[in-house]
């Protein structure tokens, strides 16, 4: 089966590559072993939140202080600003709307009740411009009875630091009795599905309006609009106080909606999504990847002119560590990581862990290396690249988006 480009990995990075290539008229396929980490999406994409332990206000400026081996530096300071403008536009064409800018971080309220710097925040959520204050003083934190994935006390405790007076209340509704019967399934997605079906929102709004008398704002878990974003807009329009949504424990409702919109966009552009399939082997000739064999398609190999490896880091098994070795499990590509196991970890848990920087080795054009040689048509994008501690820096989504856009530019050259 022949494509122009094949992308291995169906997460944020793979979908970004796929959409951009398909927008340029390329016949693309994405092979993904399952659903991606977009299902845990907090609602905010970070570009850069912290460098050397210092919080960042101006990410584009601060990128200059990163190590030369950092993916942003390798994309090039001269490219980063442009690509950071392009990323939200691409997402926007898929139906995702954001607030936020690349040259100045804004803040979002986390489920821990603190303000975290971010780059792009989905319009379900509220962007704040101050870190140490909250615009309202009398706050109602509202939860659904029986919903255990929203920890109201954390939010309340966090808000205390902003000298905010908050109160927690629960709403019980008949429509949720069915899902409450099963304690393991009183989840954000199942609540959202009830709202998606229609007539429950009005009853909820009525109760919320009643309970919110005397408060300035309502904080709610983000359990609205799984298939239909309209529910969120309607909620905000009908509740007569401002509504601040806060992410709940995954699965993330706006995350799944984002995933669906992105993969729908890719497929509407003519892309083929092979979900639940694994790449088992690649066939190389003269430093080129000719085709790949997957579990589902067997002897019918998938061919392409160029391939992108966007298979993620350890969690997604883009790279794997065992007791004695570190490897890239699909092709056996070179790994940028220590061969001495004792150097993988820092004993102090909260230190910058060395293994977090591990990834697949790539040349200056982001082509993967195998036994020291660049594979001419196999590019690497997203967190499988390594070179950054995305968790510490708050840079994971930015790296996924920008390296993907950059790699696609290399292919389109």
């Amino acid at each position, binding site marked *: 089966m022949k494509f122009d480009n094949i992308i291995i990995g169906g997460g944020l990075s793979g979908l970004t590559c796929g959409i951009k290539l398909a927008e340029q008229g390329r016949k693309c396929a994405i092979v993904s072993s399952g*659903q991606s980490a977009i299902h845990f999406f907090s609602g905010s994409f970070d570009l850069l939140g912290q460098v050397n332990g210092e919080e960042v206000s101006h990410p584009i400026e601060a990128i200059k202080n990163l190590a030369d081996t950092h993916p942003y530096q390798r994309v090039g300071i001269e490219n980063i600003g442009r690509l950071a403008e392009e990323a939200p536009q691409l997402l926007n064409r898929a139906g995702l709307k954001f607030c936020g800018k690349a040259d100045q971080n804004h803040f979002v309220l986390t489920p821990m009740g603190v303000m975290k710097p971010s780059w792009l925040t989905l319009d379900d959520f509220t962007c704040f411009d101050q870190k140490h204050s909250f615009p309202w003083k009398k706050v109602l934190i509202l939860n659904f009875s029986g919903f255990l994935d929203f920890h109201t006390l954390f939010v309340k405790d966090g808000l205390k630091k902003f000298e905010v007076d908050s109160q927690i209340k629960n709403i019980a509704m008949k429509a949720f009795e069915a899902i409450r019967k099963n304690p393991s399934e009183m989840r954000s997605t199942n609540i959202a599905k009830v709202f998606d079906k229609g007539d429950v929102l009005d009853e909820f709004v009525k109760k919320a309006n009643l309970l919110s008398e005397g408060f300035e704002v309502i904080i709610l878990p983000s359990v609205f609009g799984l298939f239909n974003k309209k529910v969120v807009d309607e909620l905000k329009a009908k509740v007569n106080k401002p509504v601040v949504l806060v992410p709940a424990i995954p699965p993330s409702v706006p995350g799944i909606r984002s995933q669906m919109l992105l993969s729908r966009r890719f497929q509407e552009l003519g892309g083929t999504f092979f*979900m639940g399939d694994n790449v088992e082997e690649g066939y190389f000739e003269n430093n080129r990847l000719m085709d790949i064999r997957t579990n589902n398609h067997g002897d019918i190999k998938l061919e392409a002119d160029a391939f992108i490896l966007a298979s993620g880091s350890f969690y997604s098994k883009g790279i794997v560590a065992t007791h004695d070795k570190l490897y890239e499990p699909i092709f056996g590509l070179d790994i940028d990581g220590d061969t001495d196991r004792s150097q993988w970890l820092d004993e102090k848990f909260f230190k910058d862990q060395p293994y977090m920087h591990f990834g697949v080795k790539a040349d200056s054009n982001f082509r993967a290396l195998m036994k020291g040689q660049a594979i001419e048509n196999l590019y690497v994008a997203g967190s499988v690249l390594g070179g950054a501690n995305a968790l510490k820096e708050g840079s994971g989504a930015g790296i996924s988006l920008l390296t993907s856009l950059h790699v696609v530019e290399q292919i389109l050259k």
Partner: protein
Amino acid sequence: MKKEIFEPFNISDNNFEQCVKCTICTVYCPVLEVNPDYPGPKQSGPDGERLRLKDPGFYDEALKLCLNCKRCEVACPHGVKIGDIIQMARIKHSKKKPKFRDMILANTDIVGSMASTFAPLVNPMVALKPVRRIMDGVLKIDHHRIFPKYAGMRFETWYRRYAAKKQMDFKKHVSYFHGCYVNYNFPQQGKDLIKIMNAAGYGVHLLEKEKCCGVALISNGLIKQATKQARHNVEAFKKSIIDKKMPVISTSSTCIFTIRDEYPHLLGVENNEIRDESELATRFLFRLVDSGKLKLVFKKNYKKRIAYHTPCHMEKLGWSIYSTSLLRMIPGVDFVSLESRCCGIAGTYGFKKENYETSQGVGKPLFDQIDSSDVDFVATDCETCKWQIEMSTSRSVQHPISILAEALDVEATMKLWQNESAEISL
């Protein structure tokens, strides 16, 4: 380098140790959405398995509500065979004995052979409202369900009488696993397959003696019988694939999925030697076309707007691309892709009175898509999806092979390879 599919520290074949409790599977379970009595794939699968390993007493009969659609497995990013874990738990621990009704539904071949013998009597009988009421009351087969009509002449009989002899005229050969539906209910689909394969230059043969794949036996808990039939079929496949060098193709996605994956995973019946050469006809044809070995010529006057529905087991196999690619090759086809969702029937599941509501609830989003799609008809590779969609929407359903058979210019297609082989022999 070959990808390591099983982790070195697993104790199980179903990867349950790899579950990181991410909950993604629960998002894609079609049953959970409509029936809160079902504990969901994570709880029923890897979570419950940990408990059951300690004490089988933790087995929950609610696991029978699983449709076995495997959509949880397709969604799982860590390769946990959630559906298999649930089905294995049912096989190992369920105390419920199959009812008389379940045996009737599960024995598609025995019932089929009796019913097709008396087809002129049986068809109008089971279509009668009072009869359906009685079946509903006594057997707990929901009265909304309309049984597929039984054919007067079985496909096998037709084949032996009218088709068998001609198949020797070809140089290349395949065997056809027709399945119960083609044999007892809808021989036309088998005839269509023969028409296309002949046009492509292949003679089509029956297996020495095929038995029902057993999918309904497995889901109704008749494991011993299913295993026996599985062993029988694997032997029959071996005779074709290994002895006669004839690959086996089928038109039923569920039959082929069962034979390839459920035999080893659920019944412990090894199929290594035959698995790679047991596949769907659309995949077989796609491979020929894709590798340039076959050119299909289509009639100029075939014009249809067709929506394709991906059956759950096609989703799991990842093979709908073969059927849809073939359909898209027909110049006059205006192709509409439906969002892949379970139709809710799940073989015999939806026939049971206690599952009727769940079944229709699961299918509703798909029915709505179809009813608003403005197509001439729906195409799909699964016979029970066909019954469900035809009963629940305003559209009829055709198999991709039957669509190809109607759209194909047989003579012109044959001429292409006949000329080529004539050139080669010159």
